[in-house]
């Protein structure tokens, strides 16, 4: 069941989807719009050639961005593009929200709160550190994760909304939030 309704041509639908959710990866676009892969590739290439969309690899995903964002008056800065690609994934998004709302947090507590494995958490912490969003300080039990610039995260979270949840997402959230 597509979460997004198709209005107009595939090109128009694709462009407006990417403008609304920059950093969204191709598999997600395909799933959300129920667009055939060949059609998606063709329109991404065409929109790219017309200078309306840019596509870049981020963390193994091919992510699409609008060439110009009205509110910014230009393209999304490079560092923010990488961060947006991460924010389209559930674990880094939840991680940033957690640290933003609760302040500096211990990695061990974060893994438990986000219901993820320490390995997965460590992978995303490394990637978020690379794009300059978080900082890991201290050692051992004093180790803390904090945001470098909370205002930047706040702005991005507000400006670019998360993808809407469909019934499967709600199902995952409901069962994933169960803790003994």
């Amino acid at each position: 069941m597509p979460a997004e309704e198709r209005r107009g041509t595939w090109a128009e639908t694709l462009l407006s989807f990417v403008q609304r959710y920059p950093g969204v990866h191709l598999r997600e676009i395909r799933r959300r719009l129920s667009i055939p892969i060949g059609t998606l590739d063709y329109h991404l290439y065409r929109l790219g050639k017309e200078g309306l969309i840019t596509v870049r690899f981020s963390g193994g995903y091919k992510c699409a961005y609008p060439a110009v964002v009205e509110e910014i008056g230009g393209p999304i800065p490079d560092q923010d593009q990488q961060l947006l690609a991460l924010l389209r994934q559930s674990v880094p998004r939840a991680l940033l929200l957690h640290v933003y709302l609760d302040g500096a947090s211990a990695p061990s507590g974060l893994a438990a709160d986000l219901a993820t494995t320490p390995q997965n958490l460590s992978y995303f912490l490394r990637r978020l550190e690379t794009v300059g969003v978080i900082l890991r300080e201290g050692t051992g039990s004093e180790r803390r994760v904090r945001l470098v610039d909370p205002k930047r995260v706040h702005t991005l979270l507000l400006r670019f909304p998360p993808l809407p949840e469909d019934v499967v997402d709600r199902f995952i959230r409901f069962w994933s939030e169960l803790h003994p």
Partner: protein
Amino acid sequence: MDLTAITNLAFAGIAVFGAVLGVLAIAAWRRAPSRRMALVAGGFWLIAIQGVVVGVGLFTTGLDAPTLLAISAAFEAALLVVLFVATLVR
């Protein structure tokens, strides 16, 4: 309404809703693979199978009520174990 019809409808409903939730759980597991989601999917398929087995047993094979009750109880016990384990795993 006749009690037989109500029982028939109830087991058909259990089978259908169990299968719908089972399909949803499999879609969820494919999107976010984890042991918990696999167990939840297994649990819902147990419900669907219970609906089919008991429904068929009631109306075609002529099994007596205590036997069907025992089959139903076995499915429910298995379901509770599966959901309990799903709640414990991360």
